[in-house]
């Protein structure tokens, strides 16, 4: 046992030395290995090298803490002009920035390069639910807000909660604090509660519901994307049902604020190359992501819009003042 421990220490020492000796681009995953941000860094990093966009393998470092806040503060305070640095980001980054969960830091302290894939938001009901469309459900809530309770994998005020509220806002329903939402431990738990009839709807990501959709235990009322998701063509979008809401858990990158515009453009071009590659399409298919490519200035303004909307909603339900 001691031997193993010593070996582990020795290995990490060697790895540590190796890391400081490399001068390739670095991708910070603001979480422990295994999660979505880690996946983003490792896949993008690998594909960048495989398709020849960088000449040395991208080094991935994990910097977990504060729901991504630790890495954000590190980039803002210590690496603000590092043009060899990219950081994994997702919708959770935007939500937390909007809800002031990064200790006062704001979205304009970094630059968002782009998103190249997304886990689409979905609203599902149990197979035997009386609601056949999103419209049915919204009408029921308008008639009696207490009649439909939602379960989701994020805490109250988190992205899963906000998805429902965005749909209701779009339907001109203003009393959004009266909508019941319980945050449980992850999407699977939320579905279990819905199948069991304790909640009437479940709000989450497409990847969370795939297994249950295929087994026929739940029906998806709507997917919150611009167009129907490949592989799930029978699930209608909220948009085609008359609710102009797009809510996806996008996966992308941000870079430090003070790099030159040329460097920023270069990262955008590289990211676009990854998005267009076959390798990335395979990685997306294997991990339940839908195509969602927005790169450059277009993406920056989109993120700003998402954050502004989140701020408004969060204020309305009292998550922030």
């Amino acid at each position, binding site marked *: *046992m001691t031997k*193993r*421990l010593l070996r*582990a220490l020795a290995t990490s020492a060697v790895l540590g030395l190796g890391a400081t000796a490399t001068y390739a681009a670095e991708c910070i995953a603001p979480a422990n290995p295994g999660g979505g941000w880690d996946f983003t860094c490792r896949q993008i990093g690998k594909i960048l090298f495989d398709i020849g966009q960088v000449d040395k393998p991208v080094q991935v470092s994990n910097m977990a803490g504060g729901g991504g806040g630790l890495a954000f503060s590190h980039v803002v305070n210590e690496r603000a002009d590092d043009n060899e640095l990219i950081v994994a980001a997702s919708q959770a980054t935007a939500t937390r920035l909007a809800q002031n969960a990064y200790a006062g830091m704001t979205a304009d302290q970094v630059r968002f390069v782009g998103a190249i894939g997304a886990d689409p938001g979905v609203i599902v009901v149990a197979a035997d639910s009386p609601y056949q469309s999103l419209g049915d459900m919204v009408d029921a809530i308008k008639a009696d807000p*207490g009649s439909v*309770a939602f379960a989701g994998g994020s*805490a*109250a005020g988190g992205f899963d909660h906000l998805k429902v509220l965005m749909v209701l806002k779009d339907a001109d329903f203003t009393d959004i604090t009266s909508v*019941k*939402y*319980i*945050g*449980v*431990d*992850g999407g*699977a*738990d939320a579905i*279990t*509660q819905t*199948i*069991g*009839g*304790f*909640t009437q709807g479940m709000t989450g990501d497409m990847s969370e519901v795939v297994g249950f959709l295929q087994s026929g235990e739940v029906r998806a009322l709507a997917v919150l994307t611009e167009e129907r998701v490949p592989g799930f063509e029978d699930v209608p979008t909220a948009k085609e049902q008359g609710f102009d809401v797009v809510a996806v858990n996008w996966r992308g990158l941000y870079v430090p604020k003070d790099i030159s515009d040329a460097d920023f453009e270069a990262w955008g071009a590289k990211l676009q190359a990854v998005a267009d590659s076959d390798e990335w399409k395979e990685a997306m298919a294997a991990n339940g992501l839908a195509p969602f490519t927005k790169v450059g200035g277009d993406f920056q303004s989109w993120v700003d819009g998402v954050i502004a909307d989140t701020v408004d909603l969060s204020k309305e339900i009292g998550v922030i003042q």
Partner: protein
Amino acid sequence: MDLLANLALGFSVALSPFTLFLAVVGCFLGTIIGALPGLGPSNGVAILIPLAFSLGLDATSSLVLMTSVYYGAMYGGRISSILLNIPGDEPALMTTLDGYPMAKAGRAGDALVLSGFASFFGALFATIGLMLLAPILSRIAYQFGPAEYFALYLLAFSTLGGIASSNQAKAALASCIGLGIAMIGLDNQTGMPRLTGGNLHLLDGIDFLVAIVGLFAVAEVFIFIESHGRGSSIGVKLDKVTLPVRELVRGIGTMIRCSVIGFIAGVLPGAGASLGSFLAYVAEKKWRGGESSGFGKGNPQGVIAPEAGNNSAAGGALVPMLTLGVPGSGTTAVLLALLMTLNITPGPTLFTDRPEVVWGLIASLLIANFVLLAMNVPLVKIFVKILTVPAWVLLPGVMMISFVGIFSLTGSYFDLLLMIVFGIIGWLFRKLNIPTVPIILGILLGKHMEDALRRAMILSDGDWTYLFSSGIAIGLWAFAVLGFVAPLFLRHLIKKPQAVSD
């Protein structure tokens, strides 16, 4: 044929050379920990959890290691019971009743071999039971909403406090202290800090591992310092180890009966291995003809019965722990802590969400059983040797492992101080005969229980009758009340026998 496919998946995980190696190491360490007086399975697992993390093992590997330690400790507990008349852990208490008289009569070897086989049989029975029963239990997941979960957690507290303890008021007090500790930190719903006194270290709440190591391991050392190592010398010599075939064959009926009893006792949330061995012994004594049976005077069946019972209960206790997230005993409470730290939430969805974890665990339990049989029958002499390690070597080692383990886990000196505080609390509570397991349970389940209650209140608009709105919820409430109150009246009927004083 689902079962076979699942088992195949399990063995594909568990049969990798590294996992097998971990199982052997775990079994060996576990047997030693079980054999050492005072260091029971709960303590053993608690001490080793931080080490498993600092080795950087993945979820399945750490689970295999820890459950091997758990099963090993259940096996090992009998060694010091038989040779020293000191139970290595509470469930092994019943084994002293006939084991020690046998050893004094010069049959220590027979007692160790018979109890080794009984342990094997009981544990094997329980593992198979776990395999068959757990998937069925996991299907009831869809019946469980916030109200049912709240009642279920309540049931865990009340049965652990009721059946497993000797004083309801003290157990209830300990549970409440645990629940209070669980409230420290950020409120899940609003994000506001509670009970932190402005201390940043307390913002994330108190890590249950700090509490477990403090309450169990550190308190153990304090107890030793006070008693100054009395009663640590070997009492009975072990000469030769042979296989008493005739008594083993006669004991098969005993093993089957006691394994069934033990398993049922284990499956009941909160009852656990102590109850299993106790019930098995009492029932077998009745079966064999009460006082005239020679039970308590060195009857080999009196060694077989409690060992089959307590090992079977140990396996049975894994059923509610894995499928409902409710631990059936102190040790499974510690294992629950391990799972939660590994980001695996035991509960009704575990079998569908993480089949590789569950079936890998079950397969490794089967493997551990055979490893343990091999270790505990032919090699039992090695473990007997270890009993001669003086306490002044052993206990500082325990202290050192506790400190290194906790520090490597959290890297915070504050947690070390906290651990010592918990050690002192543990020592005080032992003096006052207040059980410490309910405190752990409170810290572990408190947040979940609170979340369940608050979700129920959101769904029902604050109507408290919602908590009793389904048959399952009412049933759980009834069992919870019964489990807590009934032992008050039954206590004089089933008196726990004390260890024989020599």
